């Protein structure tokens, strides 16, 4: 009896040892270089959680605004030696451009079942990790409460609107591309906003500060920033406009030139995994994997109406869009 059970234990130990040996052989290790435009705190949390799951991987992260990340990357491409293994950037249009230049590595084995299909590149070169929608932020002391995008163009909102400049923010560029394609909004909408003295500031961080400060009563803003500020006590509310919210997916992608593709794939897997997605929800983002639940601010039982975006069109028209925007809002 005793010896049999001991033999069983031994067998079990062997199996366990074998499994862990196999596990170690496959476990990615070494250094992973990540470039991201996530806000500082979120980037730090994401990396910490990834390292918990893959303790053998050292993560070297460069975090900055989209402009800085793209500038650094462009210089590295020009010098012929891009450093990052993975990118985690705000919008699919940027990824699409990189893909066209042949910079991205396809990862067909990525575990994407359960992930919102529209967020994933059919060629599996980039994968949307969450949904960041743009709506209307309102200072709680504001007189009116807009219910639609069209409201913002009305005379009573004159001089009180801030929005992120698409010349600086990837999410705002997608918003511009999405809205100008719609017959109910189009370029005339932006011309009306300009006539109403709306100002385009540098990025969403500047919008949330302006609206929470009361410098502007209304702001075009990404959802999580408004709700995170509100949770901390800022006098700010967020409205889902009737026409729907334009959205970006904050995709993750592997560079073709990655030095550590195994770790890069592990990072992509982690971002798309239940744990990674739960983390995104905990940080206030709508996860790409609906089954992990929604962030606490999410209006229970409802579905946010999204404005559909034709990424291919946005990429094609992006430079023309930005130029036209600069002409309308420039002097």
């Amino acid at each position: 009896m005793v010896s049999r059970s001991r033999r069983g234990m031994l067998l079990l130990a062997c199996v366990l040892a074998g499994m862990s040996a196999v596990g170690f052989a496959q476990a990615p290790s070494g250094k992973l270089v990540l470039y991201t435009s996530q806000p500082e705190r979120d980037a730090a949390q994401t990396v910490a959680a990834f390292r918990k799951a893959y303790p053998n991987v050292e993560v070297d992260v460069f975090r900055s605004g989209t402009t800085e990340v793209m500038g650094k990357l462009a210089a590295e491409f020009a010098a012929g030696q891009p450093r990052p293994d993975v990118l985690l950037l705000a919008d699919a249009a940027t990824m699409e451009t990189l893909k066209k230049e042949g910079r991205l590595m396809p990862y067909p084995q990525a575990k994407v079942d359960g992930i919102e299909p529209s967020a994933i590149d059919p060629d599996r070169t980039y994968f949307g990790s969450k949904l960041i929608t743009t709506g209307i932020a309102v200072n709680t002391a504001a007189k009116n409460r807009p219910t639609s995008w069209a409201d913002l163009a009305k005379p009573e909102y004159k001089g009180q609107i801030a929005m992120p400049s698409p010349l600086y923010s990837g999410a705002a560029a997608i918003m511009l591309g999405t809205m100008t394609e719609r017959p109910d909004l189009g370029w005339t909408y932006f011309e009306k906003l300009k006539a109403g003295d709306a100002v385009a500031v540098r990025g969403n961080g500047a919008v949330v500060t302006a609206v929470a400060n009361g410098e502007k009563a209304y702001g075009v803003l990404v959802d999580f920033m408004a709700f995170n500020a509100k949770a901390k006590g800022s006098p700010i509310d967020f409205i889902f406009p009737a026409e729907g919210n334009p959205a970006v997916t904050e995709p993750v992608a592997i560079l073709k030139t990655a030095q550590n593709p195994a770790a890069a794939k592990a990072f992509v897997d982690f971002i798309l995994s239940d744990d990674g997605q739960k983390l995104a929800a905990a940080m206030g983002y709508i996860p790409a994997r609906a089954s992990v639940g929604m962030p606490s601010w999410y209006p229970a039982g409802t579905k946010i109406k999204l404005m559909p975006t034709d990424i291919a069109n946005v990429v094609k028209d992006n430079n023309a869009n930005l130029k036209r925007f600069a002409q309308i809002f420039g002097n």
Partner: protein
Amino acid sequence: MSAQASARDSIEPLALLWALVAVVLVLSALPLARLVLEAVAPGGAWSMQALRSVLANPTTWTATQHSLVTALGGTALATVIGVVVAVAVSLTDIRARNAFVFCFVAPLLLAPQVVALAWLSLFGPSSTLLKMAGLAPPLGQRNPLYSAGGIMLLLGVQYAPLVFLTLRAGLRSMPQEMIEAALAGGARPLRVLRTIVLPLMTPPLLAGVALCFVSCLGNFGIPAVLGIPGNYLVLPTLIYQRLAGLGPSALSEVAVLSILIGVIALAGIVAQDALLRRRDFRTVSSTATARAFELGRWRVPVEVVLWTLAALVLVSPLLALVLTSLVPAVGVALTAASATLDNYRFVLFEHAAARRAFANSFGLSLAAALAIVLIAVPLAYFLVWRRTRALRVVALFTEIPYAIPGVVLAIAAILVFLKPLPLVGISLYNTIWIILFCYLGRFLILGLRPVASGYHQLDRTLEEAAQIAGARLLRRLRTVIAPLVAPAAAAGALLIFLTAFNELTVSALLWSTGSETLGVVFFSFQQGGDSQYAAALGVLTIAVSFALMLSTLSFARRLPRGVLPWRD
């Protein structure tokens, strides 16, 4: 024997000269050359397309015009403020001079975007100050600072200390005898100022004005905060926009635009050099310390005006920053119940990068200031006293890294240093050394200008006497020349330290984990919408810098006279 000595005396200067040329070329010209290459030959193939498309774009010329207008306006304002303050502090008998100088120089410590935000919140509807006084303008009112005038105002306020510091270093060696003689001869103080002081002070004044112009031209922080919402584009903000644009052509266009800024900066510098060359400004240095002008019954009014200015440029933005740092979230009114030190706790204890950033920024700024002074003292010696022609052209290169936006300099550095260095096989990229390299190239001019103006004012007789007595160049530099230009060199070192301490745009692209700078951390907070953390970090930065400035007083007695601008 003597033939040998004289041979050595001619080899030594030559070796030093060539070493200096090499250093300047590596620090300034190498990154610029790489950038020009990117403009005309992106990816290695010659192409004039970027050049054509940028120059044909009307936006380029609008931004150029805006840049010129705001830079000239900002420089004019800074010059007026800087001259008035320098003269009042150095030549009159106002009281509490040292404390005033302290407060007046301090805004340099605040990153431009901090100042801009503080002023905005000062005049905005959310102004904690105005709210407490019940004077806050209604929600949604357009802030008057979002305009060309607002940009000029803040540039002027930000860079007035540049004019002040260079001019003050010059006034330290102003021969009091000349002023006293004129006063004794019956000349009114204003006339003395116009006919004696200002003409003699032309070199430091022009040096300050030139630095100021280049600073205004290259400033990104202020037009980014005030110009983008007002849709008032200048060249640095235009460059930033192009960088965010998609596609591979972005880099070449950015390079072309940067060259445009460089050309404007050089035009200003060449004009200044032409003005300086026409006359001789040398005087024999003086030891008199008496204040030339007794203000009498005007003393109190002048003091009131000066302290009001100091309050406006430092205390009010600082107060706004302090108040923001005490609320739990942006927009919460500050009351006894809502006040919290949580933001400080987070920045100091929870955010590891913020602590590292203090150490990094301090080390980088100190190293840059010291190294640049060591380069600038011999370099300016050859430039001004030996009038080495070839060097004058080389020295022009030092202007450009300071004039172009930091982000472009960073890109140039990436292009140069991404691959391991030839021969040694080490890569500077992704280490703190690449940031130091950029700081040396970028801030060289901040040291070179004040030092050069110091040489312009000094007579060479002392050095010549030492030479006749047999002292060779290196010895003369150490024992005769360095003490003479010490006040100017210290002004330069201080400018470099203060400017580098809060620098953002260069390090924004070059930092890596472990080599964060204060500017990078501050920017990260702000970008994520966490202005209250950014404010706490800003307040801490100022507190640390003030402590550093105060600590210099403890060893001030061992420094040459006139080195510290806040000590008589």
